Structures are given as structure tokens and as C-alpha cells.
């Protein structure tokens, strides 16, 4: 989810940028990952990619060929190698799959949030001499968060439940699979399902509490006056 939100906000900013290349990349990304069902994407990451490439290496372009040509160890210019088949069954593959897919949805939510902030805000910041990046980070995004948080709460909860799709990769230490299996082992299928249900309820409740705190933080200055500020104001009034 963190990967999703982070990447999503970056994509939203790219999408609204003046630069056509950034805009295009963000659009294609959103198009691709929104169009693919999560389950299919997870199977693709867990099973599909492994057939094509058994390991991923990051290094100098044509580093291996270059190293062979000058007669040294081919791996000299390879900085980082990932054994995909080992990686694909770990929780990281699941995080990568769900995160990439989530980012596409978050990009649209963040874009809506940014567009909801009055243009005058960015203009006021720019008139004060703030460069565009800082204007976005300090003035526009904090205000956009007010609009972004509620749908992000939705997405987070949906994400918790979508972890049950991780079995597609397959990752077996996932909640639903474990609970279901546990029930089958002891011929107590329904108790297993009930246990899974309860766990999902508990986790989502905790997240909802977190969301309400976030909403209060980003809603400051809007709507009803928070208690603490009110106290300070009356104190100041009393001093005069």
C-alpha cells in the first residue's frame, strides 16, 4: 500500500505536468495496470515472468558482452542480480504486484485531489517566489490530502482484502489460505472461515481508526475549529 500511494502520487504529479513525455508515461502506466485484473497480474508475476527470465540483472548496458570481449569475468559489470524464481514465491513478489496495480488507481485519486485545490493557492505560492516543486509539496499536496484520504482509506481496506489473491503467486502464508486450510485439516471448515472473517474485521477496523486520525490532521483549517486551537484563541482573547 505504501508503494502504491507513493508511486501513485508521483504518477499523478507526472500526469499533470507540462512535460509531454512524463504525461505520456504516466498515462500508459495507468492504462496498463488498471486494465489488468489483479489476479492475472499476480499470476503473471509469480508464474509467468519466471518462464521467460529466470534471473534479472542490473548493470552497464552490454556489460556482459563488453567484459567477454576484453576477456574478463562476464559478471564484472553486473551490479545486481535477482534470481526471479526464488523471488517470485516470496512476499516481496506479492508486494510488488499489488503495489504496482494499486499505484495506477492511486494515481487517479491523487490527481483528483490535486485538481480540487484552488489554482489561486499555487499562484499565491508562486507569487511569493516559491519554485514549482516546493509549491506542490508544501502548499498543494497538503491541501489535496484532505480529498485524497477518504478514497485512499477505501483502497487500503480493499487492499487488505486483496491480499487473499496472493495465493495466485502462490504465497501460502496469506491469511485466508491459512485459515481455510486449517479448517480443512481439522474438518472444521466453517470455524476456519469465521476465524478469517474475524481477522479481516479486526484489521480493517484498526485501519479505519487510523484513517479518521489522518482526516483530522489534514482537515485542519477547514470546517469546525479543533478544540486545541479554540482554547488557544480564547486564551489570546482573554489576555487582551
Amino acid at each position, binding site marked *: 500500500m505504501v508503494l502504491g500511494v507513493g508511486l501513485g502520487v508521483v504518477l499523478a504529479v507526472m500526469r499533470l505536468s507540462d512535460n509531454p513525455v512524463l504525461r505520456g508515461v504516466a498515462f500508459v502506466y495507468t492504462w496498463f495496470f488498471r486494465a489488468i485484473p489483479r489476479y492475472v497480474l499476480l499470476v503473471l508475476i509469480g508464474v509467468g515472468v519466471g518462464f521467460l527470465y529466470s534471473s534479472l540483472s542490473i548493470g552497464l548496458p552490454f556489460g556482459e558482452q563488453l567484459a567477454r570481449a576484453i576477456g574478463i569475468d562476464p559478471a564484472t559489470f553486473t551490479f545486481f542480480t535477482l534470481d526471479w524464481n526464488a523471488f517470485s514465491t516470496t512476499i516481496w513478489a506479492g508486494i510488488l504486484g499489488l503495489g504496482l496495480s494499486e499505484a495506477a488507481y492511486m494515481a487517479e485519486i491523487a490527481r483528483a485531489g490535486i485538481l480540487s485545490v*484552488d489554482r*489561486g*493557492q499555487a*499562484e*499565491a*505560492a*508562486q*507569487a*511569493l*517566489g*516559491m*519554485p*514549482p516543486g*516546493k509549491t506542490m509539496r*508544501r*502548499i498543494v499536496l*497538503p*491541501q489535496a490530502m*484532505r480529498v485524497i484520504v477518504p478514497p485512499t482509506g477505501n483502497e487500503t481496506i480493499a487492499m487488505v482484502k486483496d491480499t487473499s489473491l496472493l495465493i495466485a503467486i502462490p504465497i501460502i502464508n496469506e491469511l485466508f489460505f491459512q485459515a481455510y486450510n486449517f479448517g480443512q485439516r481439522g474438518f472444521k471448515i466453517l470455524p476456519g472461515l469465521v476465524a478469517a472473517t474475524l481477522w479481516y474485521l479486526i484489521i480493517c477496523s484498526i485501519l479505519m481508526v487510523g484513517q479518521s486520525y489522518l482526516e483530522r490532521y*489534514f482537515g*485542519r*483549517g*477547514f470546517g469546525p*475549529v479543533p478544540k486545541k*486551537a479554540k482554547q*488557544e*484563541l480564547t486564551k*489570546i*482573547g482573554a489576555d*487582551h
Partner: protein
Amino acid sequence: MDVRAGEVVVLLGPSGSGKTTFLRCINQLETIDGGRIWVDGDLMGYDDRSGTLHRLRDKHIAAQRRDIGMCFQRFNLFPHKTVLENVVEAPMQVKGVKKKEATAKALELLEQVGLADKPSAYPAQLSGGQQQRVAIARALAMDPKLMLFDEPTSALDPELVGEVLKVMRDLAKGGMTMIVVTHEMGFAREVADRVVFMDAGVVVEEGPPSEVIGNPKHARTRAFLARMRQEEQAHAEAVVATVTGAAQALADAPTDPSGDPQA
């Protein structure tokens, strides 16, 4: 058109005549189609390389804007920040001033605009007049060489206009260079060194207020001023009517010695 340091210029003209656009061109919130603007010797927004103009990078434009303060018609205070945070934001983030110094200066400026008692209020808790005064303090916190005012009082209730104009008047007395777009004729007459009348995107007439407002040469200026005067008069009459109406209502009310209508 030239504006000297320390001069107060008021731009007048019917809506749509390009006053606001002109102000926004000065600090590059609007891109310029033709013509050039220099502030303190710097060509704004462009680099002149042997005759051809190249748009400057955003960073350079931001740097040019630092010396120009601007107040908007709709204030545009940052609603998620308190009054004090609004004022210290730019000095700390743009100029890298230490928090302690910025706060001291901000409190001084808030004192100057008559809001020393509200540093921890959020903009939504202030009246329009107070918000505009905070906006002025926020702009002044950057030590601008030039202040631009874009109809600073036209979004305000009539009884709040005075407090904002007073702050601007004090600012003018302190020797600030100001370009003001306004419909406040009284302010223009009293404070402006020069009045510029614009219509349909061009300057029609300019000169000291006594001439442009008192004795306009162009028909368009005259028509505009006559319309403004009519409006002012209609407004004054409306106020008088309400006041006399209220007085009449008071007089007509049954005078019960107990003073309590339900008794």
C-alpha cells in the same frame, strides 16, 4: 509606462480592460504575448539573447518573483496553515531564514497590519478584511521592492474595506512602490501619485489623480468615471434609505414603557 521607486500607481478601468492581466504579467503569472517588462533592471521571465527572447527556467522566474509582493482579490491565504505559518512560510522556505528570526519579523508585520492578536488563528476563522491584511503581511515578509494589489477590496463587505485601505495607505506613506488595481476612487485620489486609465487592453490616459479623475480628457475616461460616480451615489442613497428606514421602523414601533413587547 514607467513606475519609479516609491511611487504609487493606481490602475483604473472597466472590467475586462486588462488591468489584472497587466499585474499578473509583471510577476509572470501570465505569459506575455508581446512587449517587455523590466523590474529593477531585470527583464521579467525571459532572457534576451541578441534580440530573440528565451523563456527563463522556472527556478529563475521564481527568483525574480521574490522581490515582488502580490495581494489577490480573493486573498489566497493557505487555509491549512495558521496566520503565523502563512507569514513565515515564504521567508523560511524560499530565503532560508531561521524560524526564530522569521517569527519575530512576522509578529512585527502582524502588529503593523493590526492583527498581533491572531497569530494562531486559521484563515477560515478570520473576516475578509482580516484575511486580506494577513495576505499583505505575508507579501511584506519577503521584503519586496514592489507591491502589486489586484482589487484587494472588491471581495470585501463595505464596512471592511476601510481597514484594508488604511494598511495600504500606511504602506504608501512608508515609501513602498505600489501598483494598485482598484475601484476605490477615494483611495486613488488621496494616495496615488499617478493614475493610469486603461480600456480594451491599452492605456488611454495617465497623469496625477487630480487631472485624470478631476479633469479627464478622453471621452472613455469621462464615461467610466461618470458611471462610477453614479454607482457610488446609488450606493450612498441605498445606505441612507436603509438607515432612515430603520429609524422609521424604530419610531413606528409601539412604545411600551416596559420595553418588552410580550409583557
